């Protein structure tokens, strides 16, 4: 069955919500969600510290954080 955009947008919404609630409010530029429903990439507005980046990659194991 073809994945619909609104399902992917829901996942992007949930990802943005989690980031906002975990100390990254106003730091996130955008989120990309693949058709397989994985979060492909989280693009930040500025370079994160190693500790900050680890918080995200621990939650989103397969996601590229830029």
């Amino acid at each position, binding site marked *: 069955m073809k994945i619909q*955009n*609104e399902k992917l947008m829901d996942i992007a919404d949930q990802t943005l919500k989690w980031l906002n609630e975990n100390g990254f409010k106003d730091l996130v530029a*955008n989120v990309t969600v693949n058709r397989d429903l994985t979060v492909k990439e989280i693009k930040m507005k500025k370079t994160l510290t190693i500790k900050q980046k680890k918080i995200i990659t621990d939650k989103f194991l397969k996601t590229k954080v830029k």
Partner: protein
Amino acid sequence: MSLNVINAFQKFAGDSALFDENYESTDGWTFVRTEFSINASGNGLLLATNVPDNALAQCYKDIGFNLPSTYTLKIEYKPTSTPNNIYPCSFTETSTQINSQEKGVIIRTNGGTTINIATVSSGSVTQASFITSLVVDTQYYVKIVNDDSNISLSVFTGSDYETGQVGSTISVTDPNFTTLDTLQHCGRTDGGGGTGTSFAINNVSVIES
């Protein structure tokens, strides 16, 4: 000469507008359901009235050319109810609704008085953080700039599209679409509780930059 051709060569003082939709006629528009109306009672507006979030309501128009690689879009937007999940204004590859669309640059709202920008492609969806501080019944001027690297969205209260910025500028990476030739206003179809969303849009311009 078709209206689209006239629009394509229409010029405005200070801007080189490729297209301007002033919503004074339904020429070229196709409507799905009745929640979207254009120039009802001669108001010169695109009105969305209680667009549901669980059934397809839509209107669309072929603008007669593909969006260029760099451009500025200007859109007058006024939310008249607390927006639910909806796509007030988008440029897409086909007239297919947003939920199933394969290529598009989309303005999206989702709960509260929020707005953001997203792109959909055959492989993924990318969306920016939401601007969350819009107020119902306030006239906003939304500017989208594609500089061939990023597509950025800014919201202003000033009609000059420069003053009174609301929140910060948000952006997504430019997917370099070359086939976006359809302007559409569309509701959500995938679930939701049936809540309606209302807004008004006017004067959508495409300016090559």
